[in-house]
């Protein structure tokens, strides 16, 4: 009888699978992803390497000595213990993060704008007591500009009514409001000493959300040539909530990581973070194979550093608030080994 390996499902549940089953899942995962994102499947040698990583009962695994990458953290700390500055200190000194990010608990640029004077003061203090690169992050979060939270008509209500033109106009209006807010926060934070700005979960509300981020990045780059600008995506595929929006002549709806990266680099980012979602009904072997297949073309063509999103529910990490370390370390190692990533 074939040995049983303890491994996990995408929802974090511990299951037992045989090495043959794991190998089959890896093959099915890369095939599904290649078909869906129209990219090449992983090679046989790559699948062999993934099999080695996943067909093990070891509680922990890691990359080879010398292959370590840079780890950036969006939103450092839970803000429950001590102060936000303490959070940054713990991340720097205990977790040994390579870069740090201060954030307002209401993690969007719109609410952050309302408290900027206070955020600047905290940033100034934090800069005095930390050594690692320290930035400020939030989400573009286009939805906040719609009724009932904001002034713009709600396209999620207009679309089901077939009011397409109005829904598109609303999204275009929200793009400008969001870009203004992001640029405002970046300007104020540069004054307070940040080393980079992070636009996290970009594209969460679709193509207009991504466009707001790109437009903001372009303006920030023009004003601050040396500022680090990091973008992290919300999902693997830009949803066509508007459908016709373009940046630099490229239609945004339907873009996969390779083209997302090209536009982000064009707009002026210094770090691009693709996000590939986890399927909770499949094993983590399946999910990792899928993630790597989708991210690979982007990593091969990258002109800027790529930090793959490896948080809960993305990058092959289980969709569970307490992601099991055995699963996270496998996803981490697999991505670094196969993709030659710049960071996570």
């Amino acid at each position, binding site marked *: 009888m074939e040995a049983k390996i303890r491994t996990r499902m995408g929802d974090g549940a511990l299951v037992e699978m045989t090495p043959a089953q794991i190998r089959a899942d890896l093959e099915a995962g890369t095939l599904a992803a290649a078909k869906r994102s129209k990219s090449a499947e992983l090679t046989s040698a790559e699948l062999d390497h993934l099999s080695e990583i996943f067909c093990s009962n070891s509680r922990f695994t890691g990359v080879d000595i010398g292959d370590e990458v840079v780890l950036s953290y969006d939103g450092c700390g839970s803000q*429950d213990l001590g102060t936000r500055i303490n959070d940054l200190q713990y991340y720097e000194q205990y977790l040994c993060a390579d870069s740090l990010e201060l954030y307002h*608990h209401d993690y969007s640029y719109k*609410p952050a704008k*309302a408290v900027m004077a*206070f955020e600047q*003061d905290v940033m100034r*203090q934090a800069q005095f007591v930390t050594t690692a690169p320290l930035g400020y992050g939030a989400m573009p979060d286009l939805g906040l500009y*719609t009724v*009932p939270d*904001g002034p713009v008509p709600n396209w999620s209500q207009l679309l089901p009514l077939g009011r397409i033109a109005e829904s598109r106009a609303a999204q275009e209006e929200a793009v400008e409001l969001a870009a203004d807010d992001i640029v405002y926060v970046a300007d104020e934070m540069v004054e307070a000493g940040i080393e980079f700005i992070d636009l996290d979960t970009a594209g969460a509300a679709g193509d207009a959300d991504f466009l707001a981020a790109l437009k903001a990045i372009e303006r920030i780059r023009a004003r601050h040539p040396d500022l680090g600008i990091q973008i992290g995506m919300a999902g693997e595929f830009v949803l066509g909530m508007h459908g016709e929006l373009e940046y630099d002549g490229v239609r945004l709806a339907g873009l996969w990581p390779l083209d997302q990266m090209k536009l982000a680099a064009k707009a002026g980012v210094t770090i691009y973070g693709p996000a590939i979602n986890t399927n909770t009904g499949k094993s983590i072997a399946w999910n990792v194979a899928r993630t790597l297949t989708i991210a690979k073309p982007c990593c091969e063509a990258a002109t800027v550093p790529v930090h793959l999103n490896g948080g809960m529910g993305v990058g092959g990490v289980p969709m569970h608030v307490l992601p099991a370390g055995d699963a996270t370390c496998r996803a981490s190692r697999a991505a670094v080994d196969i993709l030659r990533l710049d960071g996570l």
Partner: protein
Amino acid sequence: MEPRIATRMGDGSLVEMTRSEIKADLEEGTQQSAKRAKVDPLTQDELDHLLDIYASSARFTAVDIGDEVVMSNDGTGTKHIGNRVQDLQTYEQVLGIDIVELWQIDYSYKAIKTNVAHEGQAMKIAQMLCTNPVQYGAMPDLGRYSKPDGPIDNWSELLPLMKVDEARAAQIEACAMLVEDINFVADHMVEAGADGIDMDTTGAAGDADFLAGLTACRMLREKYPFLGIEIGMASEFVLGMHGQLEFDGERLAGMWPKDQLRMVQAAGGSIYGPAVNINTGKSTAWNIARAITIIKPAMEIAEIPVHVNVGMGVGGVPTCVYPPADATSRASKAFVEILKIDGY
């Protein structure tokens, strides 16, 4: 020649006045406000007592031993040193405040709604560590619901265009949303262990803002018989931005403290906080006579505790960020001794 006494103007600047000049300012302050608020001027005894307090060169003054009142503190702490729970502990243990208040930097219920899980967690930790009553506070802040911050047409833009009906409809719509948000936040805070809810600077946007505070207060009282509900006003006079709004059949626009208090009592409030603004061009003696004259009718009918607003720029305390203790302590003593108030 009559000796000159060091005293303060409403903007905090130190000036010298003779006892006769201070006496004249007290008389003018009470006469002017009695006329404006259509109430009785202060009696000669009361004016004599105020003259004793104000015509003194002492750096500090205080009530008699045994006459102390309760200190509630809206927006406890500066948030710049340590964390928010430390702020509450410091105010409880170092400053001797009787009721401390947890708050977030964007001090309005709408902003808190999106961040309520984090606020609840902080309240729970604060309740574990504090002995004092800990309430949660923010402003109703009706303006937040109008464009460009919120979804509703901006009545301040409609009114100059003489679109009165539209402006009124917009305020009513905003009022309903605000009541819902106050309830949402309060429900969560009560679940987290809050001793009370503070609606601070109520009426800032006029009668609709006040109506929202009263309506939410009544709903909370029905749900939570034990809950402390404090309503602190934005100013002495409810502005008729709508003009026709009523609570229990009474028109809110144009209400002075006595009627404001009747409404708060009817709505089930635990503590009412009148606010009388400072005239920076007049002396603190003039200002205290005015504030006491305006609040006095409320004190005569009060059935619930009254905590007079005595922060920067209200209640006889100069409009300056470093309120001089000579002026603060005189205002403190004057209200307690003349009006027999219940707290600050």
